[in-house]
């Protein structure tokens, strides 16, 4: 048996496969399909302090090998999450990560402050990179200063490990990653979605009510992988890679490029058993290649 576990320093995962925020509901939606105990971990849907409705529909448009979404982070808020969801998911033997959102730096702080008192959360993933909330996709992760500032603030409040989730819509991803590291982030996860547009040529309207949305899925994999490689080879904290992972082989590309773990997003919609299958495929690859510990693969790209 291959040892699939990976050690992020602040937490050890039984395998490098984590379900990505916004694509795995609150975890419960996947109970009919997979045993959540099998996962390295999962990230719940982005949480603001208060409940939110999200954007007007239509919220989704399909693209070539990809999906454009402008969901706009609807959710139940921290209170209902703690009361209704957390007790039901914390029983699972897997890392539970909360994706933390905020309209302002203060809101990120209050979400973390509130959740810090609740049990059963392994880490926070600071979502400073959602393109679907402000106009033109603006978010803190587009600037090193705003990233530094948001991460520093939350770092002071949080007693738990902090993963900062970066946006790919930038010129220099490394610069942003270094700011997050400097501000005390324990890890970096990337990428969030690419700001995108689709036009209905019959009506001459955007396909999404929000006009712009975020592109995810296999289409973005090569760009995401490049960014993970650029960052992983230069930061000292672990990198969690994602973007278009559908199969074990995609996850392997990210690990070899330097990611210590991966998140699986859109694939969960296409195949609700995707995370489980990917874990099996990682195992199969390691066995075939005679690899005892998957950690030896990480960053092994021969350039």
């Amino acid at each position, binding site marked *: 048996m291959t040892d699939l576990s990976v050690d992020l320093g602040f937490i050890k995962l039984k395998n490098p496969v984590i379900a990505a925020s*916004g*694509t*795995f*509901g609150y975890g419960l*939606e*996947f109970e*009919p*399909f997979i045993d959540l105990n099998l996962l390295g971990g999962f990230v719940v*849907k982005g949480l603001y302090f208060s409940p939110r*409705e*999200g954007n*007007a*529909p*239509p*919220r*989704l*448009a*399909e693209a*070539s*090998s*990809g*999906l454009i*979404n402008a*969901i706009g982070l*609807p959710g139940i808020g921290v209170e209902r999450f703690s009361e209704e969801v957390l007790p039901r998911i914390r029983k699972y033997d897997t890392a539970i990560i909360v994706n933390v959102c905020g309209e302002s730096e203060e809101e990120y702080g209050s979400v973390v402050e509130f959740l810090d008192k609740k049990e059963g959360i392994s880490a926070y993933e600071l979502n400073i990179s959602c393109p679907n909330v402000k106009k033109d996709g603006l978010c803190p992760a587009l600037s090193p200063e705003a990233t530094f500032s948001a991460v520093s603030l939350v770092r002071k409040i949080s007693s738990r490990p902090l993963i900062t989730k970066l946006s790919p819509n930038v010129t220099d991803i490394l610069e942003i990653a270094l700011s997050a590291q400097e501000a005390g982030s324990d890890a970096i996860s990337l990428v969030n979605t690419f700001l995108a547009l689709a036009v209905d040529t019959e*009506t001459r309207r955007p396909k999404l009510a929000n006009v712009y949305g975020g592109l995810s*899925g*296999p*289409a973005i994999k090569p760009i995401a992988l490049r960014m993970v490689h650029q960052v992983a080879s230069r930061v000292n904290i672990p990198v969690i890679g994602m973007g278009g992972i*559908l199969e074990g082989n995609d996850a392997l590309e990210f690990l070899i490029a330097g990611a210590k773990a991966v998140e699986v997003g*859109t694939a*969960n*919609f*296409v*195949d*609700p*058993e995707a995370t489980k299958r990917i874990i099996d495929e990682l195992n199969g690859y390691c066995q075939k290649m005679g690899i005892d510990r998957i950690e030896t693969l990480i960053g092994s790209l021969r350039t």
Partner: protein
Amino acid sequence: MIKDPRARIVGKESWRDYFLMRLESPRIADRSRPGQFIMVRINAHHHPLLRRPFSIHSKNGKTIEIFFQVAGLGTDLLSQKNTDETLDILGPLGNGFKAEAELKGKAVALVGGGRGIAPLYFLAQELRSSGAASRIFYGGKTRADLPLRENLEKQGFDISCSTDDGSFGFKGFVSDLLKAELKKFTPARIFACGPEPMMKKISGTARQKSIPAEFSLESVMGCGFGACWGCVKRIKRGDGEELVKICEEGPVFPAEEIVWEEEEG
């Protein structure tokens, strides 16, 4: 909610761009109710990426049927699958129509526009076996858009048709046909599925006549099982309105809960 990665195609019929496919999937068939749907993976490749939703058109022992019209790449590729190939499907999904049980001994109206006929056949069968009498109103652009008419007639259903161009049956929209017929008969309930403008008109008619109605809504679906928040529609809840996932709480909603979209200018 079951994933059946190998539902076998055991029958296929087609009319122009309309297709009827019978799938063998015992566990999904077993749990299916009218108004529910399945999510079909078109192929194992990267494009098209998402599954596609289709209403359950009928069930019969271990099999279910879907009835679909080619609308784009996904349905086009699906239409090329043949008997004995397998499909990866999830189902049954959604709530389904609600009121069958209370309708014993009553007359009801089922109104389908175009491919919107898909879920109504299953509903009509169930209503029949629970002792309700369905009148089916079936509308299309032209004669060729009514491919299921003969099937439905053969099953002994009372069916009235309309075509926009008058090439068969009533000339005009099926909503107008219904309106005309409602002068003569008062169903205990109206069930409808079809384009939104059609359903909106029917909703108006039903409200005028104080006939309860249920509608099956559509929306682009990312997952079909509540995980993506993509499929929401504005629905009345309590005193206000909420954006509700139609894959979970729908696709069928009672008329009074639906906030119809404004016609665009």
